[in-house]
Every structure is written in structure tokens, then in C-alpha cells.
């Protein structure tokens, strides 16, 4: 039972940064924009949130700072990709490199001391329930926020007019422009939202998940989040399930190392990356399924004709 609780809660926690980052990217991609720079935005968010905590700011402020750092970074990408119409692959890569540099630069004075991590919630009665308490009611607030974001984004995309506008811009910005929607402005908002979420994901890593600063601490999670969006075939529920799958993989790998399995630790560490490749292959083979929810204008620069 103990082990099950540890694995279950560990999975949920490990999935949380992926949920933030991948849901954010889902919204960006649904608008027809591909931002490859998640890794960079997450690192900036992680660095800034960590800095805010060490500088004595409260946890909520630190997390907000992380989110805003991600958004600010995404704005760089937005200007290049949306206003300057550059190749979105290149602009995203530039952001990934830039973010890792800036975060390393900021982080040079952070030292290697851990900070006090974000606390779990304490709900009277519920948190003290046997089994259910530790299983469901003792997570830190950001875990619940991630789930809330999932509900909110699903509702937004499929139940509101704004969500419909966003999705249809992703299919054809030309048509959206023709019927009078401000395509560029809406795409900017999507990109900023994606940055905010990536920043939040980074902040979660540095102040809750491993309350430590390590250079390049995201270790590819930003790229895995990108893969998750493809894996999810651009559907929010599948993003959630995919993130849990990867969270579970991470935890099994850690548990495996803790149990002293007779395999090299590097092999276990490589599992999430291998798994990413495997799921990508499985999902990509079915072109029809990919096409069904695929934002048709993805990564194609759009300039409204005058």
C-alpha cells in the first residue's frame, strides 16, 4: 500500500510540469503556431521563481514570477514568428538556446542549497482520511491548479466562441482574417499563454518538484511536452493521460534506482526519452488520426494581405 501511494502520488507530481507545459503548447499549436522553445521558457521560469524564493519573496509571488518569465520569453518568439514572419522552427530553437543561456547566467549565483519546497495543502478532515488523504488531498496547490487548467482549457476550446475562433485560426488564418478576426493578435495571446504555462511548469520544477537550482534542470521535459502534444493528437484529455503516463515512467525509473535494480542507472534515465520516441512512432503511423485534430496551418507564417 505504501509503495502504491508513493508511486501514485509521485506520478501525479512528476506529471504536473508536463501538464502545464503541454497544455500551454496545445493552445499555442491550436492557433497554428509551433513554439519549439518550451525548454527555454521553462528554464527561465524555473530560474526566476527560484531566485524570487531565495530573495525572500512569498511562494505565490515566486510562482507568478516564474510564469511571467516564461511569458516574457515567449514574447521574443512571438515577435519573431508573428510580426517578423520568421521560420517558426528557427525562432523556437533560438528561444530554447537563449533561455538555457539566460537561466544559466541568472543561476550562477544560486548556489547548490535547496530551498524549502512548496507545501502540500491541508484540508481539514479530507487530508486526514486514511489512504484517500495522502492519495488525493495532500498535494501542493499547483497540482490542483494543473488539473483545473485542464478543465478550463477543455471548456475554453470546445465550449466557448473564443475557443472556436482560436481553433479555426489554427485551421485557416486566411479565412479568419477574411471574416474579420485579428489573427495576429489572437496568436500573440495564445503564444503568451503558452509562455505563461511553460514558465509555470519551470517554476514548479524549481520550487516544488526538486527545490534546487541545477543548470539545465528541465533535462528535456520541454521537448517531451512538445512530443506529448503530438502524442495527444491535439486533444486536452489525451495530454493529461499522456502526462500521467510519462510521470509514471519517471517514478518507476526512480523507484527502480532506489530498489537497486541490476541495470545501469543511465539506462533507467534514458527510459523517458526512449518512451517518447516509441509513443511518437506509434501515434504517427496513423496519419488519419493525426489529421483529425491537427491544426492545418501549424508553423506556416501568416501575413494579412492589405
Amino acid at each position, binding site marked *: 500500500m505504501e509503495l502504491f501511494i508513493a508511486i501514485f502520488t509521485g506520478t501525479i507530481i512528476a506529471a504536473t510540469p508536463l501538464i502545464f507545459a503541454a497544455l500551454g503548447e496545445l493552445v499555442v499549436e491550436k492557433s497554428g503556431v509551433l513554439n519549439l522553445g518550451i525548454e527555454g521558457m521553462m528554464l527561465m521560469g524555473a530560474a526566476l521563481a527560484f531566485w524570487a524564493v531565495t530573495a525572500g519573496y512569498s511562494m505565490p509571488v515566486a510562482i507568478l514570477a516564474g510564469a511571467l518569465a516564461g511569458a516574457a520569453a515567449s514574447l521574443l518568439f512571438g515577435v519573431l514568428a508573428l510580426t517578423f514572419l520568421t521560420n517558426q522552427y528557427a525562432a523556437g530553437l533560438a528561444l530554447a538556446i537563449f533561455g538555457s543561456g539566460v537561466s544559466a547566467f541568472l543561476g550562477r549565483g544560486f548556489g547548490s542549497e535547496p530551498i524549502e519546497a512548496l507545501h502540500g495543502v491541508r484540508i481539514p478532515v479530507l487530508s486526514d482520511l486514511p489512504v484517500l488523504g495522502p492519495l488525493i488531498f495532500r498535494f501542493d496547490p499547483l497540482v490542483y491548479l494543473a488539473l483545473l487548467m485542464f478543465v478550463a482549457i477543455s471548456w475554453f476550446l470546445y465550449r466557448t466562441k473564443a475557443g472556436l475562433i482560436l481553433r479555426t485560426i489554427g485551421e485557416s488564418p486566411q479565412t479568419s482574417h477574411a471574416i474579420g478576426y485579428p489573427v495576429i493578435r489572437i496568436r500573440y495571446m495564445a503564444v503568451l499563454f503558452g509562455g505563461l504555462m511553460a514558465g509555470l511548469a519551470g517554476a514548479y520544477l524549481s520550487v516544488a518538484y526538486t527545490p534546487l537550482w541545477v543548470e539545465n534542470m528541465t533535462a528535456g521535459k520541454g521537448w517531451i511536452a512538445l512530443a506529448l502534444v503530438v502524442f495527444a493528437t491535439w486533444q486536452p484529455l489525451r495530454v493529461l493521460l499522456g502526462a500521467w503516463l510519462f510521470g509514471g515512467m519517471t517514478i518507476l525509473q526512480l523507484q527502480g534506482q532506489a530498489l537497486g535494480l541490476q541495470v545501469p542507472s543511465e539506462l533507467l534515465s534514458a527510459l523517458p526519452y526512449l518512451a517518447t520516441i516509441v509513443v511518437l512512432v506509434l501515434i504517427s503511423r496513423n496519419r*488519419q488520426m493525426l489529421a483529425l485534430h491537427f491544426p492545418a496551418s501549424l508553423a506556416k507564417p501568416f501575413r494579412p494581405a492589405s
Partner: protein
Amino acid sequence: MQPRLELRNISKRYPGVVANDDVSLTIQPGEIHAVLGENGAGKSTLMKIIYGAAQADSGEIYCDGNLIAAHNPAMSRSLGIEMVYQHFALFESVSVVENIALSASSAFNLPSLAEKIRELSLRYGMPIDPHRQVHDLSVGERQRVEIVRCLLQAPKLLILDEPTSVLTPQAVVKLFGTLRQLAAEGCSIVYISHKLDEVQELCDTATVLRNGKVTGTARPKETTSLELARMMVGSRLPEMHVSPAAPSEKPVLEVRNLSAKARDHFGVDLEDVSFNVHGGEIVGLAGVSGNGQAELIALLSGERRHAQGDAIKINGTAAAALRPDERRRLGLAFVPEERLGRGAVPSHTLWENAVLTAHRFGTVRNGLVDRRRAAAFATGIIDRFKVKANGPDATAQSLSGGNLQKFIVGREIALAPKLLLVSQPTWGVDVGASAFIRQTIVDLSRAGTAVFVVSEELDELFEICDRLLVICKGRVSPPLVRTSTDREEIGLLMTGRTMGKDQTGGSSVALQD
């Protein structure tokens, strides 16, 4: 009476072209007003200016007597101006009602909007199911969606841009009924077209454009076709010379029982297609777009391959499983409907684009591109086909649509093909170039080449083809000899009406009546 819309001295120029030059016109309430002109005369630009999708460089627009300053489509809609685009502004991935909700100003309430759509579409005799996904709709049905979308706003002025180019003759009759009903209710209609007979049948007045200028206004019902045509194209009316065909004994292209599933849910399945094209004749394929033409042409060109090799034979060789370059070795040449991005690489120069299909004609040697020969080859095409371009170093995207089409047609003909496939030979090409391209195709066939033409313009097919096929819902009719058929028969076949045993064929096609 206060005019519904008045344009005064509108001018608009784009780099290199004057799209509109000092255009003025007046439209009364309840009037059906044609804007008539050849492709490239500036009709579409003018409509975009009225609708606010483009801004005039100079001139004034008055609506119900009020000056409209710089405006945009949203503002136009609030003034009661609605527009049905030639290429529809619909999103494939969402439903009819969601599409309409996107441009409706009302609260976001899909069930009540769906009910309204159902009612309105029935009232104007063009029923649509609001919950269907747009990608499942035929072109005709999509046009209904567009029109219903406009009607929901109770427009005072409705603009239609070439609305019949995608419709069967029968569907056109139906559409005209709806438009007359609207006009009788007081809505003004601007009807953009280059088809004289339609304008004469439907419109009260016409403004004729040529090269961006107004060349005349007329009451089409009281004016002869010849006079209208003179205003449209000037004094020179191109003439075609089509001598009788002398088909070869053996077919050059044989298609036998070709069936193929659509590659995605936007496509159409082909069912049991069979026909022949002989050397020296032109066979045309008529049909409303989206009935399988794209699939058939991709299978013929080799852009899509088929497992059953002998379903397509070129000069007797089983070719259905071959790649495009392998089929070209058998004598195939192909002019696709998209010029930029398929028939030519937009950012590449003309000499580079010559190499695209002419690489077996001396422009590539020992694995290296011979730039001098490629340039000479391109120059040859430019001279022979009178392509207006800055020499072989001009990029494909710098050419006008008509000139690029002449270049691509010229390139394919320079390959001395035994079989030429042409899809939409004169789409968006001005009248002079169209006539030239058609004549070139006819001349090529009379010199012995087998030609297969896919076109949505019946006029064009009747002008150049010796035999006609009709495609509907992925099925191809038996061949009809051009001289012994007429538009009525072709039109019926386009709706799938007389296509043999399977009578369900007509149910969801285009605009059935």
C-alpha cells in the same frame, strides 16, 4: 431614390498593376447589378474594397447616402453589406452552425442558431443540416452555407463573387431563383461574373470593367452579347481554330476499372473508372469540383500510385504503379491546376523550374545541372510561348498567373509528350492568354498527342474537346461525343442523375433540385 451603394472614382494599385482605375458605380435598393469583366479586370479587387477587405488608394464609398471612411469587413457587416466569396470562407474542421456562429454577432448559442439556420435555409429553398461538418459537404452545399450565413444578417447588400463557377447548370437555375426572391424583398445584389449569358438572364444593370477601368454600363437584357463582349475584351475577339480530330488506332492512355479509396476524409473514393484517350484527340472531364477530379489526376500523373499496375496503361505499358518521372519516360507530360508550389517552385528561377521536368532533355549531365543549357531551354519556352518575364533568371512567383501558366504549358509541351494531362488550363488566366493556351493544346493534339483535359468550365470543354466524360461522386460516365451532346445532358450527368443503376448517387451532390 437614395442609392443603396455608390462608388465614386475608386482607384487601387498593387505593385506593378493598377487593379482599379477611377471606377464609379451606383446600385439601387432591390437592384441586381452585374460587375462584368474578364479574369484580371479588377472585379475581385473592387468587391474587396466595397466589403472593406482591401482599402482603396483614393475615391469614396457611400452607403445609403453616408460616406464610409476606412472600413473593415466587420464594419461592412454592421452596415448590412455581406459577401459570398468565390473561394468560400469556411472552416473544414468544424460544423456548419459553428462556421456561421463565427461571423454572427448574436450571443454564442449554437442550438438556437442551428434552428434559425434550418428555418432560413428552408424559406429560401436551399435546405442545409446545421450540424454537418463542412468537410463532408459538396461545393454546392458549401455555397448554400455561405449564402445562408449572409442572409442571417438580413443584408441590405449582398455581394457574390463568381458564384456559379462551381455549380451545375441546374443548380444555377435554383440559385437565381433565390437571388430574385431576395431582390424582390429589397436586398441589393452585386453579381460578379465573366459569363455573359448568366448576366443577361439575371441582372438589371451591368458595369463592365476592363484592365481596371469602367468600359461601359448597360442593361444586359436589352443589350446583345456581342456588345457586352466588346466592352469586356475590347475589339479583338480571339478565335479558335479547331480542325477535325484524327484519332490514332490504338489508345495512348487506357484506364481500366480503376478504383481507389480517398486518402483522407476530405477526399472522394474513385469507383471503377474506365476510359481511353487516343493520339490526336482531346478528351475532356467535366464535373463539379470535389467529385474525384483531384484523385483521378493524381493517379494519372503518378503523384499517387496504385497497386494494380495495369489499371492505367500508357502506350500499352502498365503504369499505375510507376512514379511520375517513370511515367514521364513513357511520354507523359502534365500541367497541374496549382501553378505555384506544384507546377513550379515559387522562389526558384524559371531556368531552375525548367529543370523540374526537363531534366532528361540535356539540362542535367553527369549528375550536375547544366545551367547554361537550362537557361537556353527556359529562354526557348519564353520566346516560343510569348511569356512576359525578365528572362530565365526571373523567379516563378514574379510572373503573373497567366504568364506562369504559359511557361508551365510551354515547358510540358517542349518535352514533346505523347500524352498530355492538363488540369484547369485557364484558371485565372486573362482572355488573350486563355485563347493562346487553348489553341496551343488543340494544335498539339492535331499533331498526334493524346490530350486529357480536366476543367470546371463547360464552355472551355465544349470549345476544344472531341469527346467528353463527366465525373460525379468518383464515378466517370461513358464518353459523349461533343458534337452530339449538349449542356443539359452534361449538367444532368454532373448531378449524377442518369448514371445508371445507382440512383442514390444524386442525393448529396452539389445542388440537386
